[in-house]
């Protein structure tokens, strides 16, 4: 809340400064009564608005203080240092009941970021595939993609999350009868169990090779582009890049004697032990978010591709470009300009929608912090304020990043 007030103050200051620099309007020689002068009016009006708003916030502030005092709630952020005393289903950082309320905030935040990050990547991939399928000249594929889009985007996301969680994942067999995929993955109503990798001595060499390969590829691309600009000769960047990024680490992996062991999950008395486990709450939430957002992204992709006129394809053909370069150099760059802005708002929507986790108990920020922690401490104002500030920050970060990308690919008119 304090940060919001601060930002508001800064914006206000800049706006007022700008307005003062505006050249004064020329009213001619005619004298205007002060109550008819637009400048005076606007100053008075703004002053009244500011006073009203200030009074509104002051009243709310006073009421809140009085109400909290009556309920015996102390204001301030001191509660963040107290022991939480409740367990959390899933945590990316070490956590148990003895950690503080402040720690629950970070556990929830990381879980939100995890599901939103995976969701954005998966939804983009699936959305692009379905959007392209929607434009396929195969009638059946195009219609199937259309049905997918029209069904999924017209059903509330919460309902889809419930469906996957309660009707599908909870209905899976118990651990004893779990469904095995090649004896490696085990799916049951407790979640998906998978082998987790255990790096042994020497595995760090593989990681370092990968880092070096990525840096090498970046350098290679620059070099190839410069060479093409100077000499016109092309270099098979894509194939060499793939060879570097995939091949080099694999080679080092083989040379160091495959220093990686797998911890396979195994059935114990009541459930699986060892290996990694993906909880059903996470699976249901991720799956529903991905499928739902992919339907919207597919429509965006379709509109973007259709916005590039057919003349562009014909012009590219006339220049002698083959199918793949036409797509890569002519169609996709132009359609991305149409795709990126709405895609950004879909990413924002997905991140905000991940808060629906609270309905099925996936421990995200809203569920852990605004749910359990709020219920235990009663610090409504601080907790709701902190949670909202986090979402505002994530929104601003994503839109800043996407705006920068958008600017980079925007049309540069001569």
């Amino acid at each position, binding site marked *: 809340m304090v940060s*919001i007030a601060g*930002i*508001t103050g800064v*914006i*206000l200051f800049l*706006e*007022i400064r*700008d*307005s003062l620099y505006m050249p004064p309007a020329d009213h001619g020689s005619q004298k205007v009564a002060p109550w008819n002068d637009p400048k005076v009016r*606007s100053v008075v*009006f*703004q002053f009244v*608005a*500011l006073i009203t*708003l200030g009074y509104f916030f002051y009243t*709310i502030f006073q*009421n809140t203080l*009085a*109400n*909290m005092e009556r309920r015996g709630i102390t204001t301030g952020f001191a509660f963040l240092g107290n022991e939480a005393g409740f367990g959390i289903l899933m945590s990316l950082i070490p956590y148990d009941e003895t950690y503080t309320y402040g720690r629950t905030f970070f556990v929830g935040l990381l879980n939100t970021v995890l599901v939103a990050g995976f969701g954005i990547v998966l939804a983009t991939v699936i959305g692009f595939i379905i959007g392209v399928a929607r434009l*396929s*000249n*195969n*009638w*059946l*594929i195009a219609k*199937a993609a259309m049905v997918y889009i*029209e*069904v999924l985007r*017209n*059903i*509330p*996301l*919460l*309902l*889809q999350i*419930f*469906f996957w969680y*309660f*009707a599908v994942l*909870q*209905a899976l067999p118990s651990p004893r009868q779990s469904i095995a995929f090649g004896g490696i993955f085990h799916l049951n109503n407790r979640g998906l169990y998978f082998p987790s990798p255990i790096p042994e001595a020497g595995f760090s060499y593989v990681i370092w090779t990968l880092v070096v390969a990525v840096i090498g590829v970046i350098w290679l691309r620059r070099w190839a582009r410069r060479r093409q600009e100077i000499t016109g000769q092309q270099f098979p960047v894509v194939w060499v890049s793939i060879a570097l990024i995939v091949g080099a680490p694999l080679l080092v992996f083989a040379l160091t004697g495959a220093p990686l062991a797998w911890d396979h999950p195994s059935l114990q008395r009541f459930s699986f032990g060892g290996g990694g486990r993906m909880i059903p709450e996470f699976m249901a939430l991720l799956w529903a978010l991905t499928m739902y957002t992919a339907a919207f992204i597919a429509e965006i992709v379709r509109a973007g591709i259709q916005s590039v006129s057919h003349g562009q394809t014909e012009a590219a053909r006339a220049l002698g470009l083959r199918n793949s370069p036409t797509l890569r150099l002519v169609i996709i760059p132009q359609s991305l300009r149409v795709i990126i802005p709405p895609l950004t708002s879909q990413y924002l929507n997905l991140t*905000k*929608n991940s*808060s*629906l986790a*609270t*309905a099925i108990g996936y421990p995200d920020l*809203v569920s852990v912090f*605004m749910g359990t922690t*709020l219920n235990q401490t009663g610090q*409504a*104002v601080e907790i*709701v304020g902190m*949670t*909202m500030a986090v*979402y*505002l920050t994530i*929104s*601003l970060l994503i839109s800043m990043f996407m705006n920068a990308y958008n600017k980079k690919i925007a049309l540069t008119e001569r």
Partner: protein
Amino acid sequence: MTDLEHPSLAPPVSSVGIVGWMRQNLFSTPLNAGLTLLAVGLIYFLLVPLFEWAVWNADWRGSDQSDCTSGGACWVFIRARLDLFIYGFFPTSEYWRVDVVFALLAVLIVPQFFDRFPRKGWIGLFTLIGFPIIVYFLMMGGSFGLEPVETGKWGGLILTLVLAFVGIVAALPIGIVLALGRRSTMPVIRTICICFIELWRGVPLISVLFMASVMLPLFLPEGVNFDKLLRALIGIVLFQSAYMAEVIRGGLQAIPKGQYEAARALGLGYWKSMSLIILPQALKLVIPGVVNTFIALFKDTTLVLIIGLLDILASVQSAIVDPAWRNVSTEGYLFAAFSFWVFCFSISRYSQALERKLQTGYSR
């Protein structure tokens, strides 16, 4: 000169009719043929069991769990609990009041689908302003000799409709004011509007609903309290008005500058030029956007179940966990999904038709 006119030959069988269509649309290339076969296989393995489960083997008649014996879908469950899904916990003797609301809504909506219905605009205006007032008195009761029904008993489909309708009707005027404010030349007003809009657009609806249900009671002076439905509505309206403002701002930006200048040249002040010149054009432009916002809101109303209101999804959820029925979750969710789908899909098709119609009106 001899006339060498030959009757034209019929096109080859392989390029017309069903065969030609299939060659062109399903098997034009080997890749396409493979994709088609893959799709046919998938559809076969997905749709055939689904059809068997949902239609062929389903139980349609009966009154309780014991009538669901065939192993297919148990539609008996939906039939038995339909009253809960539509009316919530509204008293059975007062169902007719909800029915009147549904009937009135249908009567008011129908003219909007015809191009030249007499007084169509006035009916639309009445739907937005007069209708909610009638619904309020009808549903709340307590006057005109109607038995009062507390809002805690509202639920099911009618609650979903009330939330969506009030949300859109209240958010529209607030959104217009915010959009005008955001384009104002007065720095204080503009800043306030930008902060309001970006704040609500940046946070998820759940946190707004949480805020409305947990924080709002703290903000109010002692002794003043809103009921749960009103608190949820306040949250929804605040949230929705920010989105509405952005939609309307798009319309305002699409009006050419000449219109603003012409209005000023006619000597119109700010409010007159806005209400007589700019807004009528801008609002017409954004009708599709407003309808899309309405669809989003309609789907978002399901979130109120998290703060404990019994909308259609929540009533389905409560019926599913009822121990009198077992393994009916899929049927329940499919029913709820179908209800939402019918509403949202038809509204979106209506919006698309509207968009096409309005577009032709603007092409010169």
